[in-house]
């Protein structure tokens, strides 16, 4: 993680704590339209009720990203996970932080290596 500026690493780890500690019941359930997700830039995580974070991603619209289908949903299905055992945690990004969202995402993925994050 030394190849990213300290302020990026620090913010990544702060956001990762938010995603990791968000109570499962407060995260957005899987639905067709994902109206519980914000239509704005941010970082999101697929969380399993018992297994924790499965995937971390980012998008300019978290709601539209999930609404359009997602490979992590397919993997969860193949792994026989029940839809009610998978929720989406999310954190919004401001205009300034969205410019470095790739770096934020990569720091998080390297830190916890979610099983479905292979990008």
């Amino acid at each position, binding site marked *: 993680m030394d190849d990213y500026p300290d302020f990026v690493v620090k913010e990544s780890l702060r956001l990762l704590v938010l995603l990791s500690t968000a109570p499962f019941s407060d995260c957005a359930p899987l639905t067709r339209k994902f109206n519980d997700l914000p239509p704005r830039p941010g970082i999101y995580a697929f969380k399993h009720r018992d297994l924790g974070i499965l995937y971390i991603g980012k998008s300019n619209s978290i709601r539209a*990203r999930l*609404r*359009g289908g997602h490979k992590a949903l397919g993997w969860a299905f193949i792994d026989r996970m029940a839809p009610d055992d998978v929720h989406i945690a999310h954190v919004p990004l401001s205009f300034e932080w969205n*410019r470095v969202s790739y770096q934020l995402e990569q720091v998080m993925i390297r830190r916890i290596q979610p099983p479905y994050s292979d990008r």
Partner: protein
Amino acid sequence: MQTADSTTKATLLSHFPERIQVALSHYAAELNLPPESLVQLGIGYFLESADIDAGVIDQALPEPHQGILANFPKAMQKGIEQYATEYEFPPEAVVELAVTFLLDPDASSFEECQVGLQREQVHLLQHYRQDHQAEAA
């Protein structure tokens, strides 16, 4: 959907980096649309997912406006400005958010955008376009 005249078309695309212009042309050819209409379709989809009326079938002429927003119908300009106010992004950045999402839903900016044709994005836009054509009929 309203389509801009030829002068506006050149102006709209010229706001984007060359590689983005090329990618938009590929998507436009796939959807049999002028690239400028494709941009409006993509922005319409992005705003509508935020429950903002995109005005993609609006027939009003653009108001005098500075920058890239001047290229869009009035209703779409309002939608972009509404989104910009609600989420605290500059209006011009909202256009980049939407166009980037159109080309690569995992990218955050033109710079990061993977410009290869993504079949899922083509299908998504086709469905969105069909839905609006049905509504307009």
